[in-house]
């Protein structure tokens, strides 16, 4: 009879996959990821790519918000920095698209670190408001620095090609997006086994206590901002080459809010949660749109209302999750697993 998972050695405790069931689930997931593009239709492939980019962005935000406890409302702007840097490098300076992505991520890390500077003095609410200001300021620069970004007009990025093959088809870019997502996942999971990751978590739990324990708050907070915005910039850069068009409207405050909603609904401080939240928040609007179109025959008025219904359900889902399950989908997933593991004595 199993009553829980217990470890008898340090190696077991440190292992990434602790039980055979976890390994089997991972294998199934990888198989699914590898085979998905071969049988999925184009619509689902597009959705999968959107989810992939959202997963990268959500993991990036979760490193900062969920693991380090620094609330950021500037996600959209940092993605914009990544997307515009990648787009401008390729469109105006002829940098190959695959080279522009890491450069854009590094530059976003730099910008993120700069806007993380207030975290030296501010925390909690005040930091959240400072990142809100960062969002407004960065987006203002993007829309007003016409010579470089093209202002409010969309920036057109040349079609990415690899060995003469067009890469911005859903099928080809799937591998780029999900390859990056898997790399970022491995990096993040391992990050929180190192002393850096542990310092981040200590800062989240009680920053003053952490600094008493010898953690250099300023250094680690900035590092968290840098790593987080690197990953977020990566998501932005991928978005730029996938869409081959960069438009400031894709990076507004609403985007910041959507990503925060992803990690809250998924689960703060959890990579699995980032996946679940990203998938949930990408699929939900698509589902509502499809339902709305399906109901168009009986309620013709519904089509014009779809955006409002999406917005209302978006708000409602956030509120409901926060009130009834503030630890998110990840907790629900854990509860389900526990239920079956401990069955029939799951209390």
């Amino acid at each position, binding site marked *: 009879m199993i009553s829980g998972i217990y470890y008898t050695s340090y190696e077991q405790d440190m292992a990434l996959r602790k039980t055979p069931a976890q390994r089997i689930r991972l294998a199934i997931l990888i198989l699914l990821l590898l085979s998905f593009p071969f049988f999925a239709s184009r619509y689902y492939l597009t959705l999968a790519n959107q989810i992939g980019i959202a997963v990268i962005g959500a993991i990036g935000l979760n490193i900062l918000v969920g693991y380090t406890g620094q609330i950021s409302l500037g996600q959209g702007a940092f993605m914009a920095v990544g997307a515009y840097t990648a787009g401008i490098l390729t469109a105006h300076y002829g940098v190959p698209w695959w080279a522009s992505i890491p450069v854009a991520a590094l530059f976003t890390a730099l910008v993120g670190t700069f806007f993380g500077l*207030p975290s030296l*003095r501010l925390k909690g609410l005040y930091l959240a*408001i400072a990142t809100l200001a*960062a969002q407004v300021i960065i987006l*203002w620069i993007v829309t007003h620095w016409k010579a470089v970004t093209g202002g409010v007009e969309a920036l057109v990025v040349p079609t990415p090609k690899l060995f003469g093959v067009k890469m911005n088809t859903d099928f080809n870019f799937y591998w780029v997006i999900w390859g990056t997502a898997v790399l970022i996942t491995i990096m993040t999971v391992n990050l929180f086994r190192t002393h850096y990751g542990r310092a981040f978590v200590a800062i989240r739990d009680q920053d003053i206590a952490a600094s008493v324990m010898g953690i250099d708050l300023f250094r680690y907070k900035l590092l968290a901002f840098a790593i987080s915005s690197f990953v977020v910039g990566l998501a932005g850069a991928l978005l730029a080459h996938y869409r081959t068009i960069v438009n400031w409207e894709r990076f507004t405050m609403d985007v910041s809010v959507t990503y925060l909603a992803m990690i809250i609904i998924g689960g703060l401080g959890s990579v699995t949660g980032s996946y679940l939240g990203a998938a949930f928040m990408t699929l939900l609007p698509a589902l509502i749109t499809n339902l709305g179109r399906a109901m168009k025959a009986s309620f013709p008025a519904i089509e014009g209302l779809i955006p409002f219904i*999406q917005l209302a359900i978006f708000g409602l889902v956030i509120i409901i999750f926060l009130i009834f399950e503030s630890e998110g989908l990840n907790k629900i997933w854990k509860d389900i697993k526990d239920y079956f593991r401990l069955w029939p004595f799951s209390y």
Partner: protein
Amino acid sequence: MELFLQLTLTGLTNGAILALAALGFVLIYKASDVINFAQGEFLLIGAYLIYAMVVQFGLHWTLGMVITLLIAILLGVLIERLILRPMIGEPLISVIMVTIGLSSLLRAVVSTIWGNLPQAFPSFIPTQAVQILGAKVGADRLWAIGIAMLMLLVFNLFFSKSKEGIAMRAVADDQTAALSMGISVSHIFAWAWALAAVSAAIAGALVANIVGVGPELSNFGLRVFPVVILGGLDSIPGAIIGGIIIGLLEAYTGGYIGQGLNQVLPFIILILILMIRPYGLFGKEIIERV
């Protein structure tokens, strides 16, 4: 000189409206330590309600205003009871996100009922131009300044003279001590939300009279942040003075420099204030202990 006066008057009006919007924000923060990201939507709802009363139902504006305020009170109390009360004791990010979720929900409801297009608003306050020292200004703008000042005075009296106002200040100061003195903290929270909704609804009606109603009125929710940070998150005089300073700065940069700089300048000031004096001009400095 004429331009300067013109800009000053515009700035004062916008500042007065910003101050009213910020007032509700400060009230909620003062009483319950909640940052209300839905303040702009409260303003939006206030504006659309008065629009519905006056234009769609054809009521006289005084009656319309009374009904609007009653609905605003009801809405504030309901939101506090249903959404904010379960959040007591939850981490900061949950509280922030719940009000963000609320703002999406309210915006969606408003757009579903009234559509997404800006509507002209038959002004219920006289709008003819008035000459002041050579500068022309709409009478409605002067009214807005007057009404805003009156509201702020009323709120100030409320806090210094009335029993509920004093109880609210007690709760803001120390919830446990207030509870032990027989003050119902949950009633006070409801009061704070109701008053916040009322001040936002009045601000909304004033804005609606000047520029008309439209979904972009909810932008005020973001624009109050520089105001409250400058004035101090928990200070009512701070909200007023912060509102006026930000309003004037926006008007001057808009008038003299242009280039849309007036949209971003308040946020640059916000960051500077946060770096130098995070608790603002009049806010209370918080010392944190482990």
